[in-house]
C-alpha cells in the first residue's frame, strides 16, 4: 500500500493510508434516550475544533460516557446529528460505520484487552478496519500492518512486551497497550473514557501525559472523559462540564474555578474530586 495517499479523503478509496490530519467533531442538538426511558443526553450541541485537547467532566451518570460513545457510533443518538471530519456518524451503518470507526481511536477505563492473548494480537485489533475479514480469519497480516503495530507499541514504550500475554501486565502497562491499539488505527481523533480511573496516581499522571503527547506531537483531536478536576486543569486546554445529560460548563480548563466545578458536580467540591500531584 502507498503511504503517500495520506492526503486522500477516506471516502476517496485507499483506506490503508492514515486518516488525513486531525478532524473537528460536531454534535448538533443530540439527544440520547435509552430503551429503559433514561435520557442520558439532552439537546447537546458542541463544536470541537481539529487538534483540540478537551476534557469532558462530570460525575458518574452525568452522560459523559454516553456522549463519547455517540462520537464513534457505539451509541446511536435518538435525535440530532454527530459529525466527525468527513463522516456523518449518526447516519452511518454497517461497513461505512466500521470504516469511520477505523479513523477514531478509543481507550477505556477497564482497558478492554483480551487477557488470554498476546500484546501483539491485542494491538492488531487496531488494524481491523483496514483489513479484509477473510485475511483476519486466516490469520494473515501484511508486513505494513506489523510495522504499524510495532511502531505504535514502541511509541508507548511497550515494544519489549510485544509477545507477553496481555493479562500478565500491570494496569498502567495494559492502558499503554490499549493506547497502542488505538494508535495502530492511525486515527484522526482519539477518545478516552475515564482512562485513568482504574490506575494509581503516578500511573494516572503518566497515562494522561501520554494522551497530551498524542495531542501535541501527532496533532490528534483528543476528547477525554474525567471526573477529577485537577487532571482536567493540568492536561487539557478546554473543559466541557456535563450534569444530568446537559452541558453546564464550556470554557478553558486551566482557569476553571472551584465554583465552576461545584456547578458541574451539583455539590461542594470534596477531597475525592482531586487525584493529587505527581
Amino acid at each position: 500500500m502507498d503511504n503517500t495517499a495520506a492526503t486522500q479523503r477516506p471516502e476517496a478509496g485507499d483506506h490503508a493510508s492514515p486518516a488525513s490530519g486531525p478532524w473537528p467533531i460536531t454534535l448538533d442538538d443530540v439527544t440520547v434516550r435509552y430503551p429503559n426511558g433514561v435520557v442520558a443526553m439532552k439537546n447537546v450541541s458542541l463544536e470541537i475544533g481539529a487538534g483540540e485537547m478537551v476534557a469532558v467532566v462530570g460525575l458518574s451518570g452525568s452522560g459523559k460516557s454516553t456522549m463519547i460513545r455517540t462520537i464513534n457510533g457505539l451509541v446511536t443518538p435518538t435525535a440530532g446529528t454527530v459529525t466527525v471530519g468527513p463522516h456523518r456518524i449518526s447516519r452511518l451503518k454497517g461497513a461505512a460505520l466500521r470504516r469511520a470507526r477505523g479513523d477514531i481511536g478509543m481507550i477505556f477505563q477497564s482497558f478492554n484487552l483480551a487477557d488470554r492473548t498476546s500484546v501483539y494480537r491485542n494491538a492488531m485489533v487496531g488494524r481491523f478496519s483496514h483489513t479484509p475479514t477473510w485475511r483476519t480469519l486466516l490469520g494473515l497480516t501484511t508486513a505494513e500492518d506489523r510495522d504499524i503495530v510495532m511502531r505504535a507499541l514502541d511509541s508507548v514504550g511497550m515494544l519489549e512486551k510485544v509477545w507477553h500475554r496481555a493479562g500478565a501486565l500491570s494496569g498502567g502497562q495494559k492502558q499503554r497497550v490499549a493506547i497502542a491499539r488505538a494508535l495502530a488505527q492511525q486515527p484522526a481523533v482519539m477518545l478516552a473514557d475515564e482512562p485513568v480511573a482504574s490506575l494509581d496516581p503516578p500511573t494516572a499522571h503518566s497515562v494522561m501525559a501520554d494522551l497530551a503527547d498524542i495531542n501535541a506531537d501527532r496533532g490528534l483531536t483528543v476528547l477525554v472523559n474525567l471526573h477529577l478536576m485537577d487532571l482536567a486543569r493540568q492536561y487539557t486546554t478546554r473543559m466541557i462540564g456535563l450534569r444530568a445529560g446537559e452541558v453546564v460548563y464550556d470554557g478553558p480548563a486551566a482557569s476553571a474555578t472551584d465554583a465552576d466545578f461545584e456547578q458541574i458536580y451539583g455539590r461542594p467540591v470534596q477531597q475525592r474530586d482531586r487525584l493529587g500531584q505527581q
Partner: protein
Amino acid sequence: MTAADAVAGERSQLTIPPRPRTWPRAAAIVAALAAFTILTTIPAIGGVELDFASIARNWTNGADRIVQMLTPDWSILPRTWQPLLETLEMALVDAAISAVLAVPLSLWAARPTNPNGVARRAVRFVLNVVRAVPDLVYATVLVAMVGVGTLPGIITLVLFDIGIVVKLVSEAIDSADAHYMEAGRAAGGTQTQINRVTALPQSWPAIASQVLYSLELNVRISAILGLVGAGGIGRLIDEMRGFYRYDALGTIVLEILVVVIAIEVASNLLRKRLR
C-alpha cells in the same frame, strides 16, 4: 480507655436491624420438593411404580452374576486388546472432529460472539434437535445406513460430542466477561474479526476442557454402542453377555475403568496447564 472498653461502650449504642427470617421460606421449598418427589412415585395419579420389596425377593438371582464379575477371568485379556484399542482410536478421532466443528458452532451459539438473534436461535435449535435424539437411536439408524463397523460409531459420537461441547462452551462464553468486544467494535472490526482475534483465545480453556471431557465420555459410550454393532469394546461386551460370561465381563469393566481413570488424570494435567 482500652480498646475493649471502647467496644463495650459502642455495643450499647448499636441498633442492629432485625435479621430477616429466611428459614420458613427455605423449609417451604424443601417441603414442596419432597412432596413433589413422593407424588411422582404414586402410580394411582400417574406416578412411577417403585417396588422396593422386589429387591429383597429377587436379589439372589443377580448375586451369582456379581460374584462372577468379582472373580474376573483374565484369560479374556488377549482378546480385548484389539477392540479396546479400536475404542480408544474412535474416542480420539471423535473428540478431534467434534472439536473442529464445535469451535465455530460455539461462537455462533453464544450471545456475545453472535449478536444476531435469528442466526443464534437457529444454531441453538438445530443443536437442541441433535441433543434430543438418543445416541443409541443414531447408532441403530447409522448401522442400517452405512453398515456394521466403526464408521456408524464415529458419526454417532461426533453428533453426541458436538451437542454437549457446543452447549457447555457457548454457555461459558455467555457468562464470561466480554469487555474486549467493545474495543474491537470501536476499532471498526466485524464480528468475525473480533471473534477470531480476541474471543477465540479467550474461549480456549472452555473449549479444551469440554473436549477433554467428551473424550472420557466417548470411551464409556462406545461400550454401549457395540451392542448395536457400532464397533469398539462394546461388541465384545455384547458377545460375553450373550454367553453369560460374567467373569470375562468383570475383566472388561476393570479395563474400561483403568482407561477412564488414565484419561481423567491426563486431562486434569492438561487443564492445569491451560489456566
